[in-house]
């Protein structure tokens, strides 16, 4: 195949395009953060997962230690069963607790892992039962309103007497 000076320019063009795709993949989508660490799976049961999504981070002390793998509804207990993939290099006590937290006011929801004090550690297939559900704004407001109403009726009873 004959070489022409177009070769250089076409090569440069393709290189620029490839760099752009690489930039999109690495800088924006953060392909590198997809960890190829070995993980072990743990399930957790929640009364309400709120806006948690698959691939959401599991953080302990603010550091990402795993990801939410999938979430299914369990029609035996009427709870959400969340499967977590925790990185193998981290071990957690068996009585660790999970909370659904929100990063920032409007940010994404993630799982906060609070280590317990047990000597035994979580292994693949274990279930974490002490969990704290996501805050649902509507139920929070209705709780507040109900307690207000209860206060009001209590006050009314006092004045009657």
């Amino acid at each position, binding site marked *: 195949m004959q070489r022409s000076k177009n070769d250089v320019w076409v090569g440069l063009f393709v290189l620029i395009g490839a760099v*752009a795709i690489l930039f999109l993949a690495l800088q924006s989508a953060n392909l590198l953060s997809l960890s190829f660490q070995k993980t072990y799976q743990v399930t957790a049961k929640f009364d309400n997962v709120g806006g948690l999504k698959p691939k959401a981070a599991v953080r302990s002390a603010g550091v990402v230690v795993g990801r939410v793998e999938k979430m299914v509804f369990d029609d035996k207990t009427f709870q959400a069963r969340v499967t977590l993939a925790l990185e193998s290099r981290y071990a957690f006590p068996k009585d660790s607790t999970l909370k659904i937290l929100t990063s920032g006011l409007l940010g994404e929801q993630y799982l906060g892992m609070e280590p317990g004090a047990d000597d035994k550690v979580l292994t693949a297939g274990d279930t974490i039962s002490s969990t704290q559900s996501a805050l649902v704004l509507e139920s929070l407001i209705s709780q507040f309103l109900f307690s207000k109403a209860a206060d009001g009726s209590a006050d009314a009873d006092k004045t009657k007497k």
Partner: protein
Amino acid sequence: MSWYKPTDVGFSARRQLADLGQGARLFVRLLFTLFSSLKRFGLIRDQIHFLGNYSLAIIAVSGLFVGFVFGLQGYYTLQRYGSSEALGLLVTLSLVRELGPVVTALLFAGRAGTSLTAEIGLMKAGEQISVMEMMAVDPVLRILAPRFWAGVITMPLLAAVFSAMGIIGGWVVGVLMIGVDAGSFWSQIQGGVDVWKDVGNGVIKSVVFGFTVTFIALLQGFEAQPTPEGVASATTRTVVVASLSVLGLDFILTALMFTI
């Protein structure tokens, strides 16, 4: 030609159908030329040089300015809700998912599609294509196929350049000029953009647009009336038909890709 005479209506309907059939046949023929044109990659390379390198400047500059505008407008809207840190995410998602592929395809139709149509139309007007057929050289294989595959290869690269330049433009306006925090600008992008769902689907879109725009440009040139007026109207049709198909296809592709 009048719309109330059944014979005229029938004739024009038949002609439209024949055009459609001819176009579909040419498209399938072009698809089957993939391996035989890859064997003569020199031809494709020269066309990539013509379509890609010369479009690079307009694509990069447009991307940069679209990014600038997005940075300004996005910041103006987002700071009302006190979430100006999401500016990077807004810019990146809009560019990677929609604007990158679509605007690149529209610019490509205007910059490269018209020149393809005019070139082939003039070859036809100058009877060069008939001469090739006389010499038993297949004009589809020798002239159309390298341009077609060059367009298909070029489009995703140009769209990626457009999106990348747009993100840089958004960064320049958002972080350097307005003063959004650089760390949260990038971390919002990295948290919210998925490699396969967002970037990957954007690339698929631009490949589809590459097929669409290049094919329409080649078809209009190949089917043009071999007269100066014919070439002129074919060039106009390239821009109109290609732009409309890109926008229509984009709606369908978005509906397929990003629902759920």
